[in-house]
């Protein structure tokens, strides 16, 4: 018995020894009436960092966006570009020089004045390869930025210059009609040189070092647990949002946020998969569901150089034999919006009429013209590769396998891979053949450049479909430079027609977001592009 007592005592002592002296919860200061708090869920991995210059825009972006502001911002209701830290800006007639005039009296969250040179510093820092930015290419349209970013140039060679405390002059390599969208991106947020110089990578960790310039400022970040922000008293504009926002960080946001929401711990939950069906059937939850449009497309990416999919008729046949409506509504329980076309709706250039659509009879005929009538001569080893951890992709693969078998009489082989192995496999598809896999894209900004040029131009070939069409390439190159919006849209519409007809991608659905939102919360909106919650637009009515 003595041994047990001794062991128990040892355990108690050890527990006590390991316990930190204090671990209090942050409480909003003061006891003033009607302090409101918005409680939101977020993924535990603030994936890379809270450093706006480094972030790739995954988890963590919502917090960064609430605490920082760029020269201009995208209105989260209308999508218009509006003046932020800059009061106004002028663009030279050749479209190359942007002159930004900052507002008077701008301040950082610690009360220090904010100058145009803070932007110059931030932009050059984000472009510097030594910063290890995950999103450095955002600023590459600036003259000399790409050379600097790829180690061939210098910071001085990058054409962004604060000519005085209130003026920032930027010169571009070539005209870029979408440049104001890039100016509004988090990579272009100002950051404070003194705190970064002093604290290095750790400047993002505490309220005293994480100095920001947006609607809110940091109170506390407990890694993998929570992040709390409060209204920034030094912000130039109004903020009628909640006084405090607390994000609780979960490893599995979708599963855990619903449980925490039902227990009344948070005001918004992320709904996916089976929980959507359950919430729809629940008398209370069904009234709190909200579905938001999200400008993105999910596709089956086809290797258009590898037989049999190098034959355009085969690709068209597969595309037209894919019943995307049934896929979304039945297989995926209406978790998304039904497929419209390759590029997501709302992007200038995208035209629903260009899409091939679902037509099983036509598909059968096309496949027969390609020499595979009723699946005869169809090669035995056409593979659909997917990450085994992605349950939804597996469901899509199994569903199209069945659809193509019944509509076209062909067999495909499902090839699951460990998640990271799959990511690596996909990276190596750059110069290696494959048949098909599922991937998707959501707009970073609502401009055709973010889709046609960045993803589908044969030089970019972002998803390694190996698809090349000289007419398409020349059209999108033309569109990139065109300054007249109407002409520009019409150029991209022609390009849109080509890519849809050649079917290197089969759209399975358009992205969506499902939320549960408590009835006392109003103004909580996900704009279709990026769609992070902006606290200042939300009201907590309780």
């Amino acid at each position, binding site marked *: *018995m003595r041994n047990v007592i001794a062991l128990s005592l040892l355990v108690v002592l050890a527990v006590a020894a390991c316990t930190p002296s204090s671990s209090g919860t942050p409480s909003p200061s003061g006891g003033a009436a009607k302090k409101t708090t918005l409680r939101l869920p977020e993924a535990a991995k603030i994936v890379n*960092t809270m450093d706006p210059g480094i972030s790739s825009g995954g988890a963590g972006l919502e917090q960064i966006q609430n605490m920082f502001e760029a020269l201009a911002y995208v209105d989260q209701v209308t999508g218009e570009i509006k003046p932020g830290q800059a009061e106004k800006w002028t663009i030279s007639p050749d479209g190359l020089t942007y002159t930004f005039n900052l507002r008077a009296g701008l301040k950082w969250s610690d009360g220090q004045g904010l100058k145009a040179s803070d932007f110059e510093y931030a932009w050059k820092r984000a472009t510097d390869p030594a910063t290890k930015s995950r999103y450095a290419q955002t600023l590459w349209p600036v003259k000399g930025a790409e050379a600097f970013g790829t180690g061939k140039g210098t910071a001085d060679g990058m054409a962004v210059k604060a000519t005085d405390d209130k003026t920032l002059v930027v010169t571009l390599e070539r005209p870029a009609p979408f440049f104001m969208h890039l100016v509004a991106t988090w990579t272009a947020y100002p950051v404070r040189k003194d705190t970064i110089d002093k604290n290095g990578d750790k400047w993002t*960790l505490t309220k005293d070092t994480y100095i920001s310039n947006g609607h809110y400022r940091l109170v506390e970040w*407990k890694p993998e647990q929570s992040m709390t922000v409060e209204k920034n008293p030094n912000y130039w504009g109004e903020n009628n949002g909640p006084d405090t926002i607390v994000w609780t960080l979960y490893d599995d946001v979708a599963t855990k946020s619903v449980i925490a929401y039902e227990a009344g711990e948070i005001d918004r939950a992320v709904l996916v998969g089976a929980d959507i069906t359950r919430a729809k059937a629940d008398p209370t939850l069904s009234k709190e569901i909200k579905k938001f449009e999200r400008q993105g497309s999910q596709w089956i990416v086809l290797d258009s150089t590898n037989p049999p999919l190098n034959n355009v008729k085969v690709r068209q046949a597969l595309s037209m034999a894919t019943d995307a409506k049934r896929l979304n509504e039945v297989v995926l329980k209406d978790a998304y919006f039904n497929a419209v076309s390759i590029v997501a709706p709302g992007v200038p250039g995208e035209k629903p009429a260009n899409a091939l659509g679902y037509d099983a009879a036509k598909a059968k005929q096309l496949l027969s013209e390609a020499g595979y009538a009723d699946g005869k001569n169809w090669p035995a080893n056409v593979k659909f590769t997917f990450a085994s951890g992605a349950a939804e992709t597996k469901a899509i693969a199994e569903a199209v396998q069945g659809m193509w078998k019944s509509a076209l009489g062909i067999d495909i082989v499902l090839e699951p891979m460990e998640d990271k192995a799959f990511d690596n496999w996909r990276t190596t598809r750059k110069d290696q053949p494959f048949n098909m896999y599922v991937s998707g894209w959501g707009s970073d900004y609502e401009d055709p450049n973010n889709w046609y040029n960045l993803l589908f131009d044969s030089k970019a070939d972002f998803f390694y479909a190996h698809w090349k069409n000289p007419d398409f390439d020349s059209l999108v190159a033309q569109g990139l430079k065109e300054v007249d919006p109407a002409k520009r849209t019409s150029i991209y519409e022609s390009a849109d027609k080509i890519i849809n007809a050649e079917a290197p991608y089969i759209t399975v659905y358009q992205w969506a977001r499902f939320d549960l939102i408590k009835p006392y919360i109003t103004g909580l909106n996900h704009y279709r592009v990026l769609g992070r919650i902006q606290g200042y637009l939300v009201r907590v009515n309780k």
Partner: protein
Amino acid sequence: MTTYILRRLLWVIPSLFVVFTLTFVLVHATPGSPWDESDKPLPEAVKQNLAHQYHLDDPLPKQYLDYLANVLRGDFGPSYRSVERSVSEIIGATLPVSAQLGLASMLFAIVVGVPLGALAAVKHNTWIDYVSSLITVTGLATPPFVRVSLLIVFFSLALGWLPTGGWEGIFDVRAIIPILAIGLGPAAILARYTRSSLLEVNGQDFIRTARAKGLSETAVVVRHALKNALIPVVTVAGVTLANVITGAFFVERIYSVPGIGRQFVDSVSGRDYPLLLGIVLVFALLILLVNLIVDLSYGFLDPRIRYR
């Protein structure tokens, strides 16, 4: 005795070296890089720059030697996925949480498991024994992630007594569900060991002698039988201890406890090589030390064992 301890401690060095080398080779042999993201792939130029900045484009033998040199200096390097915290800082912040949780769970296991096992043995083949068996078999058969999910559903959703997750230190209500979820397994193990060991001891001559002396049943069980029966139990408890303080991945993940088990698995799936290597070395060291302590404890518990 001292020579024995010194010899065992010296053996820790080559063991850690082997663990380090094997882990290094294995993580680099698995496909995937820290920046192969599935949602939104990074542009090639950015990935190349990152690989260059973190010296991942150096030849593997050079990476191995450089990293080894850093580890010998006590520097585990940066974490690829967390810009702001180094590997040493992440381990320093998360290991104490898992250790507290593990120790508290172990305490719970001892306090519940040993009396339950003893009771079952004393009331051998009665309904008490059967109920105790039912509890322990259930404890053994349900994995921790099922237990933690059931506990959340019961205590947080149905009764609304406890939060659905989080961590505010070991003396906060948030610690209750993870302690129960982790501790029930070891409690069941200890109960089973105590029961069978006590049954075996009960049949031995010195117990009959004790009874023949006219000692009360309580005195026989507590002072004579249980003391001897606990030798194997303490051994098992030691080994289980190493297991629970190195983090219960599923429980930490599901209950949002910022412990080291969560980091361990995330570092594998995220290919965060420095973090993974750092955690493996710390775990290896802990397990080697706990094993040494368990070996030494035999000598104290059983006078027949001597170390040279």
